């Protein structure tokens, strides 16, 4: 049996700034720097120039080669300085649904009185976000990472890097902040109608109340809204996606009960409940959520909506 040679990932040996509490400062002990591919190319060109200067005894060739070599050194200092002593704090983390990108908002602040250029940050192998920071200024960086599972998602190790000003050197630093984003479960496909409202806890058959007739107004589209309710005319007028709301729905009160939700397994049930929460919220129903160990009484507002989704997101059935 052949074993692939696996070198330990040397980057794991590098220091990560793990402050017990934000902010994290990218102090000099946390900054690493190496030449980039371009830096190596530059070095090769300089060696070529040096050899040429020696061969043809070009004194000015020496002057230029040495000037550019010194420039490379200065560029290294500039690159390092561009990143050094930035302070990183966390911003607001908006919840997202599974399948979307989890978004982590970080705030980078300069306290050294130097403008910073082309500061980039990324999580794992995601595309980096770039920003410039004014002297004594701060800037928000929105990092993303695909949300694959419901629940709390940690940002994990965040890499800050810069290659400014010449692109010859790559200075980087790792930060691990207490920075998490709530991921709501993936809503099931629309189709199964919301259990209709009835007295005390029963979920009766879906009974259309014909409320669809009374158009009540528009609100901005939310993930999971039925495409049939999107006001396509409004969107064609470039007003963004709007969802139609209907009068009759507001008057219903219903319970979404874990026990009465169809589904082959836990995740399917959670998905279905998520769908219903969205539909009920969209339809302006009064709805409550009953989960193992959790009960949220019927209500109809954004806070309730998010509380329901959070309960579903972090539901632990084991």
């Amino acid at each position, binding site marked *: 049996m052949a074993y692939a040679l696996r070198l330990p990932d040397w980057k794991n040996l590098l220091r990560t700034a793990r402050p017990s509490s934000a902010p994290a400062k990218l102090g000099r002990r946390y900054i690493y720097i190496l030449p980039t591919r*371009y830096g190596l*190319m*530059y070095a090769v*060109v300089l060696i*070529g*120039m040096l*050899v*040429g*200067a*020696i*061969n*043809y*005894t*070009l*004194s*000015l*060739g*020496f*002057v*230029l*080669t*040495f*000037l*550019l*070599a*010194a*420039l490379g*050194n*200065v*560029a290294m*200092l*500039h690159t390092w*300085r561009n990143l*050094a*002593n930035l302070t990183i704090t966390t911003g607001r983390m908006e919840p997202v649904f599974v399948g979307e990108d989890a978004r982590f908002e970080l705030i980078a602040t300069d*306290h*050294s*009185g*130097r403008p910073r*250029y*082309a500061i980039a940050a990324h999580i794992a192998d995601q*595309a*980096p*976000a*770039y*920003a*410039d920071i004014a*002297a*004594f200024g701060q800037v*928000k*960086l*929105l990092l993303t990472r695909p949300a694959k599972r419901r629940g709390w998602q940690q940002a994990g190790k965040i890499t800050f890097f810069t*290659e*400014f*000003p*010449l*692109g010859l050197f790559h200075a980087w630093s790792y930060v691990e902040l207490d920075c998490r984003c709530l991921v709501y479960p993936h809503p099931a496909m629309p189709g199964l109608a919301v259990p209709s409202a009835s007295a005390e806890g029963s979920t009766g058959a879906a009974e259309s109340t014909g409320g669809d007739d009374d158009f009540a107004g528009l609100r901005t589209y939310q993930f999971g809204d039925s495409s049939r309710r999107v006001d396509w005319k409004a969107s064609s007028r470039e007003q963004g996606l709007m969802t139609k709301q209907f009068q009759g729905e507001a008057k219903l009160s219903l319970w979404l009960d874990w026990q009465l939700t169809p589904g082959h397994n836990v995740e399917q049930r959670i998905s279905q409940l998520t769908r219903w929460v969205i539909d009920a919220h969209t339809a302006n129903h009064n709805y409550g959520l009953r989960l193992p160990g959790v009960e949220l009484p019927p209500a109809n507002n954004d806070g309730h909506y998010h509380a329901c989704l959070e309960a579903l997101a972090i539901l632990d059935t084991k």
Partner: protein
Amino acid sequence: MIPAIQRPTLTDIRWLLVSLGLVMALHVAHLALWVSAAIVMLGLWRYAIAIGKLDFPRLMILLPLTVLGGLGIMLTYHGLFGRDASVALLVIMLSLKLMETNSRRDFMLLTFLSYFLTTTAFLFNQSVVVGLVMLLPIICLTATLVGISHPNGSLGWRHPLRLSGIMLAQAAPVMLALFLLFPRVPGPLWGVPQDSYRGMTGLSDSMEPGNISQLSLSGAIAFRAEFKGEIPKLSQLYWRGPVLWHFDGRSWRMSSNRLNLPREMLRVQGAPTLYSVTLEPHNRNILLMLDMPTSLPSNALLTRDYQVQSREPVRTRIRYDVSSNLNYTLAARLDGHERELALQTIDGENPRAQALAEQWVSSGKSPEQIVQTALTMFREQPFSYTLSPPLLGANPIDDFLFNTRSGFCEHYASSFTYLMRAAGIPARVVTGYQGGEVNSVGNYLIVRQSDAHAWSEVWLEGRGWTRVDPTAAVSPLRIESGIAAALPESNALPILSRRDFPLLRKLYLSWDAVNNNWNQWVLGYDQQRQLDLLSRLAGNRLSWQDLTIGMMLAVGVIGLAIGLAMLRGKQIKTDKLQRLYAKFLSKLESAGIKRASHEGPLDFGQRAAARLPHKAQAISQISGLYADLRYGSKASAQALERLRNLIKGFKAS
């Protein structure tokens, strides 16, 4: 909104085009016209693409263009590998690369190659001016790199320029240290293209009518000489070059190298003249020294007739410290074979000259008298000295002596030597330079190609080889004051050898002094000079290992100093008011009341007053006054003074 990586912006393209244009402008002088035209066309094309007027050309168009460019270079320069051809090829290929350059990677690559292209300009010219002008493309190329390393949108054009200037200025000290201390290796490491040294002018190994007067039209500098002590009189300065023995009826050549004759005996009297020569490259082995050399440059050869030669053709500017003795006797005895060589003439040619010489001999004159007679003839008969002599016929010596009678030094040297040989006096032609121009600004001598000269040496019993300069008989001014004085102004002398425009001359001499220092200290800074200079500074002999250690130390120390200076954080600039308030805050803090960052001065004042009821009045007074001064519209010096006193008198405990 967070900008992600974007394509290079229009500003980036402009920077790249401007820098490339500047680099190529360094080369325009030695590029074929069509190459320059092609560069401009491609640059404009790329700009049209950048502003959206045209699309990027497809490979179907680029590929034939590339092949065409290569072929064009091959035809224009007869190959691809000479100096001129390689540079032209690099220029064309970079311009074509531009046509598909749209990513950051391509930008970086083009910029790096342009740095390299800048160096190649030094193969053609390394003057002070080029050294200074070179900074322009370098600054712009660096600014291009700055722009391209900012992938999230454009930085504008001013900021990259400033940053590039700052960084290059910060790089200068390290560059200087490296230049001084980097151990120099004498080149070349491998062969250099033959055409690298084309276009160098200088003396040749032979002399025919017209080739020295041709050289005299050039104002180019042949060499500069610095004397330890006084500069001897111009009329004594004969810079010895090739010694010509063999006459073929038209041209004079050196004697064969294969002759195995002993070196002529040299006896000198008096003190030697010490001087150093900085010789411009001329792609021949001739090293010029004053008559007669007594100490040689290292690595030089001395022929038996006292020509000094280098082992390799002089292809870079070299400098040598040597000595000569102007008072000498050369070859008191002449052996048979040499006498034979020095009497060689051509039978049947130039019959009138032959007859004249025989007539002198038969009239019973001694050799000394014959020499004088010939010189008197040149002086008294209507011979004239001119840079543009008429063409000579089949018997050039006869034609010159009895017919045209106007010529340049080579005509006089040639005919005089011929006459002497015909009269049985051993004689030879010596070419070289005569005189020079004293630069009073730098106190050294400038010798130009226009000072090229030819004279004779005759061998006289008891006196050996004696220098006779027939030109001096015709035009004494040429020898005493230089060529500019000897020739009428109508002649086509280089403008800088002329004597009109004294102010211009003065400026020119100062400029030449700058150039001389540049040559000595920048261009001539080779292994020898480096070790000499640094050893003198260090007080003991250094080796290249010492230099390496010194270089690392110097670069380290300078780098550290620059790094520390750069990394010193800027302090927040505070005004008087803020400093006063900070004092107040620190007094309260010592009493355990700390202002939170979200608290305004008034809120904090209330809280502090509640904590320290007995100081409430003072605290609210100070807070109120501070808020007024900071945010109100009625700030005054008196109010500030009052605040100062209040805070001074305030005690938190």
